[in-house]
C-alpha cells in the first residue's frame, strides 16, 4: 500500500514533464459550443483523446492562457473579441510570446420578442436612445439622464410599447459587444457626446428598464415567452433554435439571418477568434491535427457542421488566410494589435 502511494505521488510529480496527449482549451462561453463541438469530432475521429474545453469567459481564458508557458497552462483560448493590449502584454511578461491569432467566423447578436407580437423595425439609433444611460436632450445640444419609457418617445414611428429589455449582465462578452457596436460606435461620431467629454460613451441605463438576466441565454428566451411586451438580447444560435416562440427584430431594415450577418448588412455582429500557443505544438502533437480539423471548410465553411449550431461562416478567402496563419505559426505582435485598434477608431 505504501509503495502504491509512493508510486502514485511520483507519477503526479512527473506529469508536467511529459508530453501531453490531451489538448486543453479555455475561453469564451460564446465560442464554447463551437470549440467543444469540434473537440468531440476530433476525439471520435482521431487517435487522440477528446480535448478538454472549459468555458471561462474570454477574459478568464486570457488570464489562464497568459499565465505561463508550462504544460499545465492551456494550449488554446477562445475569444469572442480580439485580445486586448493589456492581455498581450501580460502574456509577453510571462514568456508566452508566440501566439497565433485565428479568426474563424462570426456571431450575430439579435434582439428578439415574443412570436405573437406584431413585427417591429428598429435602428441602432433607436436602440442607443432607448438603452444608453445618458442621451441627447430634446434640442440636441447637451446630454441628459435617459428618461424614455416608451418606444414612441424614442422614435415617433414606433408603437407605444414600454421599453423593457432583458439582456446579458456586465460580465458577459455579448454585453461587451453590444455596448461597443450599438453604443460606442455611434457615440464616437456624435458631436453631443464629444462636447460633453464622453467620446465613445458606452454605458447602458441602470434604472430598471434594461434588465440584466444572467449568462444563460435560455433564461432570457424563457422570459420572453412569459413577458410578451419585453425584448431580449442574446446570441444568434438561440434565435435559430427557438423560432417557434420568439422572432428576431429587423435592425436597420435587415433581418437577423445567417446571410445578412455574414455580409455585415445586419449591423450587430462580432468576430470569433481562437488564440494558439505555438510553443506547445512540439509537446502537444495533437494540436496541429486539431487546428487543421477546426479550420477545415467542412467545419467552419458555408456548408460546414458548425453552421448547423449557429456559427456564421466566413468566406473562403478568409478561411484560407486563417489556415495560413496557423501553418506559418506567425505570432501576433503588440504593434500589429495597436495598429488594428487605431484603424477601428
Amino acid at each position, binding site marked *: 500500500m505504501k509503495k502504491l502511494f509512493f508510486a502514485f505521488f511520483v*507519477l*503526479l*510529480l512527473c*506529469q*508536467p514533464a511529459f508530453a501531453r496527449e*490531451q489538448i*486543453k482549451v*479555455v475561453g469564451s*462561453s460564446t465560442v*464554447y*459550443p463551437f470549440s*467543444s*463541438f469540434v*473537440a*468531440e*469530432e476530433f*476525439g*471520435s*475521429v482521431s487517435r487522440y*483523446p*477528446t480535448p*478538454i*474545453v*472549459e*468555458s471561462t469567459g474570454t477574459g478568464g481564458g486570457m488570464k489562464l492562457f497568459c499565465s505561463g508557458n508550462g504544460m*499545465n497552462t492551456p494550449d488554446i483560448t477562445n475569444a469572442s473579441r480580439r485580445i486586448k493590449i493589456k492581455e498581450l502584454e501580460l502574456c509577453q511578461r510571462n514568456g508566452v510570446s508566440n501566439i497565433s491569432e485565428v479568426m474563424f467566423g462570426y456571431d450575430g447578436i439579435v434582439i428578439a420578442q415574443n412570436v405573437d407580437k406584431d413585427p417591429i423595425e428598429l435602428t441602432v439609433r433607436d436602440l442607443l436612445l432607448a438603452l444608453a444611460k445618458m442621451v441627447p436632450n430634446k434640442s440636441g445640444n447637451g446630454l441628459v439622464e435617459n428618461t424614455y419609457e416608451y418606444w414612441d418617445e424614442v422614435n415617433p414611428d414606433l408603437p407605444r410599447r414600454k421599453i423593457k429589455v432583458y439582456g446579458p449582465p456586465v460580465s458577459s462578452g455579448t454585453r461587451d459587444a453590444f455596448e461597443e457596436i450599438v453604443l460606442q460606435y455611434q457615440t464616437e461620431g456624435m458631436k453631443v457626446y464629444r462636447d460633453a467629454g464622453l467620446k465613445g460613451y458606452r454605458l447602458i441605463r441602470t434604472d430598471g428598464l434594461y434588465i440584466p438576466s444572467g*449568462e*444563460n*441565454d*435560455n433564461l432570457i428566451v424563457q422570459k420572453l415567452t412569459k413577458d410578451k411586451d419585453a425584448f431580449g438580447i442574446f*446570441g444568434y*444560435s*438561440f434565435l*435559430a*433554435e*427557438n*423560432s*417557434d*416562440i420568439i422572432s428576431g427584430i429587423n435592425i436597420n431594415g435587415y433581418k437577423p439571418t445567417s446571410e445578412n450577418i455574414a455580409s455585415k448588412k445586419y449591423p450587430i455582429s462580432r468576430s470569433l477568434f481562437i488564440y494558439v500557443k505555438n510553443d506547445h505544438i512540439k509537446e502537444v502533437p495533437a494540436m496541429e491535427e486539431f487546428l487543421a480539423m477546426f479550420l477545415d471548410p467542412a467545419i467552419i465553411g458555408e456548408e460546414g*457542421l458548425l453552421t448547423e*449550431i*449557429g456559427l456564421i461562416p466566413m468566406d473562403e478567402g478568409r478561411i484560407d488566410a486563417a489556415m495560413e496563419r496557423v501553418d506559418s505559426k506567425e505570432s501576433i505582435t503588440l504593434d500589429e494589435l495597436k495598429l488594428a485598434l487605431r484603424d477601428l477608431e
Partner: protein
Amino acid sequence: MSNNPFYDPSLKHRHRSAYMLKLLSRLSILFTLGFLLFFLFDMVRTALPATWQAYVQVEVSYSERAKKFTRTAVPKEYRKVVSRAWLRNIPRQMEEDPGLLGTTQLLWVLADDQVDQYLKGHYHNLKEKEIAFIERLKTENTIKLDWNGVFFNNGDSKIPEYAGIRSAIVGSVLTMLVTMAIAFPIGVMTAVYLEEFAKDNAFTHFIEVNINNLAAIPSILFGLLGLSVFINLFGLPRSTPLVGGMTLALMTLPIIIVSARAALRSVPASIRQAGYGLGLTKLDIVKDHVVPIAMPGILTGSIIGLAQAIGETAPLIIIGMIAFIPDTPQSIVEAATVLPAQVFTWAGMPERAYVEKTAAGIIVILVILISLNATAIYLRKKYETKW
C-alpha cells in the same frame, strides 16, 4: 358563569390564538410541500421523454467509400434522419470488425435529435419533405421510440441524441471517493481528539470556533483555496477528480467533525469509566468502545456531508471541472466533470433536445441524494443504541 372563580374571560381568545398558530404551521407545511411537489412534478414531466429515444431501421452499406465519407453509408433520403454521431463511428466499427467491409446490413440505428423531438411532439425544425418521409417510415414501422440506453452509456456530447450522463456519474464517484478518503479519517480523528483527548482550554475553544465557522463559509471560497493551493502551489492537474475531491474534502470536513463530535459526546461517560475501572488504556477505550458505539452517528453525519458535496458546483467551476469532457475518466488524475456540472452545462445549451436531458440529469442527482439520505436514516435506525 361569571360566578365561576376559575372563569378566565380571555380563555376563548387564547384558545383561538392557539388554534390560529396550529393553522399557520399547517399552512406553512402545505406551502413547502406544494413547492416540493410542483418542482418534482415539473421535473419528472420534463424528464420523462428522455427515457425514450428515436431509432430508425436503415440499410447500412459498409463500403470503402463509407469509411471516408460516412454519410454515404446510408441511402440519401436517410441522411437527415440518421444521427450524425452514429455515422461518425462507422470507420471505427469497421476497424474493429474488418469482416464488415463490403456487407450491407439492416440495422436499427440512432436517429437525429430533430426527428426524435418530432416523434415526441416537441418543437423541431424539420422541413415538410422530411416530415412526410418520417410519416412514411412510421407507417412502415421502421422508425420507433425505444429505451434510451444512450443516456446512461455515453458521456457528454454536442450532438443531443448522443449525449449521456455516464462520464459525469463516473466523475462524481471518483471525486467522492477522493473526498471521503481524505475527509472521513481526518474528520473522525479530529473529532476523537477534540472530544476524548484535548484539554478544555482557550486553544481548543479557538479551534472549535474556527471549525464551526468553516462550516458556514460559502463554498466558492473553498474553490479559490483549491485553485491557489492545490493547482498553483502543488502543481496538481486542473479539472481532475483528485483536485476536485480534495477541495470538496475541505468543505465536508467541518460537517463531519461537528457531527462526529456530537455522536461521541452522546456516548455515556459510564462506558469510559467502566473501561478505566477494568484497567484499560485510553486507546483501548476509544478504539474498542467509544468509537464503535458512536459509529452510526458518525456515519450518518458523513453521509449527509457526502450528499452535500455531491450537489456542489460552485467550487468546481473555479478548478475547471465545469468543462466539456465526454471521455469517461479512468483514474483520479484524468480530467472529469461531475453530475451537477453536467446539468449546468446542458441547461445552457441552445438545442431544445437538451431540455429533457437537463431534467433527466436532475432526476438522477435527486435519486442518488435520496438513496444516500435513506441509507443514513437506515443506519441510524438500525444501529443506534438508546441509553
